[in-house]
């Protein structure tokens, strides 16, 4: 593996070929916020909160750190004025969907994002895909997936699979940054398998 030297926030960082900017930054203890990133999953680039500014041959542009591969002599800025502005906007948009998410609120404080900037459309899901991808890539059960498109896109459990698999797993719950998933699961459980749900409740 070829070794690559790059600069993140003015600090020399050693990385190996094929690493992403995010991985390189983490290895050097430089913090980049993420929402849709998970070590065990393939990079997704869905939330864009990890946006950083990279400089190649004098040209700077914003890229998603979780997807961008490291290059020799790359200059990365993780906290420039532009980056902060982009993250603030993303947070404000996400907060319109999930205003009560602790994870989002903490980031909002850091970047000065106003949770009331946009009209609330509380779907409680930011479509980060952590649950969907974890179920597909790690557990290989495909019990939860995305349905519909555009503004109507949402996550949905497949009753035939989730009725068999989800009871003893529920590993996707703690991944959810907005705890929408848990609410959706409980709802689906109570609607679709009312007998199983009540049985479960008495066992607890």
């Amino acid at each position: 593996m070829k070794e690559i030297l790059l600069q993140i926030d003015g600090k020399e960082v050693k990385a190996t070929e094929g690493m992403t900017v995010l991985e390189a930054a983490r290895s050097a203890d430089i913090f980049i916020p993420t929402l849709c990133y998970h070590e065990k999953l393939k990079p997704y680039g869905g939330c864009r909160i990890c946006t950083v500014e990279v400089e190649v041959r004098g040209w700077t542009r914003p890229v998603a750190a979780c997807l961008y591969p490291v290059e020799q002599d790359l200059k990365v800025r993780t906290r420039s004025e532009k980056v902060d502005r982009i993250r603030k906007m993303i947070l404000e948009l996400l907060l319109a969907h999930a205003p009560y998410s602790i994870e989002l609120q903490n980031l909002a404080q850091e970047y000065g994002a106003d949770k009331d900037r946009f009209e609330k459309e509380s779907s409680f899901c930011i479509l980060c895909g952590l649950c969907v991808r974890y179920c597909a890539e790690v557990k290989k059960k495909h019990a939860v997936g995305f349905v519909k498109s555009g503004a109507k896109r949402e996550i949905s459990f497949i009753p035939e699979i989730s009725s068999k698999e989800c009871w003893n797993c529920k590993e996707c719950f703690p991944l959810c940054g907005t705890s929408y998933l848990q609410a959706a699961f409980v709802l689906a459980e109570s609607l679709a398998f009312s007998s199983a749900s009540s049985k479960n409740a008495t066992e607890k």
Partner: protein
Amino acid sequence: MENKKIDRIINKYQGKPNSLIQVLLEIQSENHWLPKEALDRVSKKLNVPLSQIMQIATFHNTFSLIPKGRHEVHVCTGSSCHVRGSTRLLDAVQELIGIRPGETDSDSKFSLDTSNCLGCCNLGPEIIVDGKHHGKVTPAKAEDVLKNYE
């Protein structure tokens, strides 16, 4: 839809997971909608998880998860047709077949949907029935178009 018909479509693609959309399209065009049993069968035969099939089947407007009528009526609501009065045309069509966009009438004769611009702007406002375009349809002419379908 019978399993035999579904299998015939699937077998053409020899169980290749990446031909999922093609298989769904063929079932859709033959059956006019995608029944649950068909999706289960596709999932099993093509070795594609059901969640992924649902993602695709709900993503594209072409696919329908509810039964459709024998004739699919689309009223164009693109900007050009809108300016030429497609709103009134849509009202007239709704009145004629008694259903709203997205619905199917009780004897499964017509399904009504709106569509976005189809590029025949100089023919607007237009109705598309089973893929056939009927141009310059005024609300009064809508009945003449629809009465040809049984």
